[in-house]
């Protein structure tokens, strides 16, 4: 049996059991709404376009935050890969910063920027930057010396060597760094929106929870999960695979 078919059967059985439990009254709708209620809540959300506006707002913040995180992360990564002093100072600090969940910066961000988009985007940037920087550094440091020696015998050096050999040689790490940066940024975005103002998926989730609309809470959680796995599996894993293949890894 194909894995895809196994997965579909698994999900059908899971949802079936969930619906059955709700119908038999094993738990109340307030504790765990039935799949039908969740579906209805999602349907209404999309019908009156609130969820669509939420998605657009969330993706806008993510796009801005992640783009900046990738740019800043790459710059820091190149700096610490190339300068020993920068690596000894900034590099060691990055590891510490990386172990701090970026959402803990939100209170500070709200003080600095106010309770708005900027504060959320700030934590998204912090979520993605460090892991990108660390991966870029590893990528550049792991470039095969053979490539560099070969390029040197062909007259390449300095900035030309970096642009034409060292950076492209570390592309597999750029891809992995981007995938991890996206994953951290996505989590930071949801956490930030939960505690901030709307519109946005996270905001709608906390709003629904305040009003006891558990069907919508579960609906939004499902949307977040689906988007996360689509981006990860359909986009990043495919790119990673084709890069690994071409780079002979």
């Amino acid at each position, binding site marked *: 049996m194909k894995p895809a078919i196994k997965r579909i059967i698994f999900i059908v059985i899971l949802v079936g059991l969930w619906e059955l439990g709700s119908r038999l009254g094993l738990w109340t709708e307030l504790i765990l709404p039935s799949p039908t209620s969740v579906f209805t809540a999602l349907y209404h959300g999309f019908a009156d376009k609130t969820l669509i506006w939420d998605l657009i707002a969330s993706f806008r913040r993510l796009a801005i935050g992640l783009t900046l995180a990738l740019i800043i992360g790459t710059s820091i990564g190149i700096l610490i890969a190339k300068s020993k002093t920068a690596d000894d100072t900034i590099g060691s600090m990055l590891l510490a910063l990386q172990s701090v969940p970026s959402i803990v910066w939100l209170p500070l961000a709200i003080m600095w920027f106010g309770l708005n988009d900027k504060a959320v985007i700030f934590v998204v940037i912090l979520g993605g930057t460090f892991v990108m920087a660390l991966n870029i550094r590893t990528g550049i440091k792991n470039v095969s010396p*053979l*490539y560099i020696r070969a390029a*040197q015998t*062909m007259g390449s050096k300095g900035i030309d060597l970096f642009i034409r050999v060292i950076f*492209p040689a570390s592309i597999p790490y750029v891809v992995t760094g981007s995938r991890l940066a996206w994953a951290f940024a996505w989590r930071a975005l949801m956490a930030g929106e939960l505690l901030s103002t709307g519109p946005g998926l996270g905001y709608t989730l906390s709003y629904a929870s305040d009003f006891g609309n558990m069907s919508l809470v579960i609906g939004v959680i499902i949307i977040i999960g689906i988007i996360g796995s689509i981006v990860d599996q359909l986009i990043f894993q495919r790119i990673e695979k084709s890069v690994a293949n071409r780079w002979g890894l």
Partner: protein
Amino acid sequence: MFISINQLNKQFLDKNDQPTTVLKDIELDIEKGEFVSILGPSGCGKSTLLSIVAGLTSATNGEILVEDKKITKPGKDRGMVFQEAALFPWINVIENVMFPLKKEMSKQEATAQAKKYLQMVQLSNYLEHYPHELSGGMQQRVSIARALAMDPEILLMDEPFGALDEQTRTRLHGQLEEIWIKTKKTVLFVTHSISESIKLSDRIIVMGTRPGTILTDIKVDIPRPRREHKEDMLELEEHVMSYLKKEIDKVVSEELNHETSH
């Protein structure tokens, strides 16, 4: 003299910061257009010597002159082929061969030049392929084309066929000989295979190990194509082996001593 290596010494610091001599008093003169093999057991410093000629490694003292100019850094007058093809996986075959040409020619000229040398190694049908789609032998031919494309005076080859299977190696020997006759390059060819060096070169520099020194300089006077002179080749092989035997025994006994001392 075209290439002249004078009183070259190379020392490395080992794990305990003790200097070890890798190359000792290397003296070698090479004429323009000569095909010279540097033959020796592993650890004799032959690859280090080639790397110094390439300008990738610096000598501790002594100097290498190419047309009376001292070598201090890599240059396009010396093309290098490594044991691994060292092609860049992110660009295709023709772009790899065009890599050294980007700065000094227009795109059209570079493309024409690259195609010319890819034809010479019989890979005209693989211009758009990526390195991972080629066999080891084909990759090595691309890397030969890439070194030739910048039209160097000297071609440095560091055990270029060492990682290939026997049949592929034999075929590439033939191709390399043809290319050398056609292009008149000066070739420095590092190898540990006696038969390979006899098959290809005008001169064989036999090196000994620890420290790396030149044991002897043998002129190969067998007319080409040499596969028609099997007996002469075998005879020479034994002559070369007589020099190498001692060296190989030295390496083996050292390794055994090393083993028992632990």
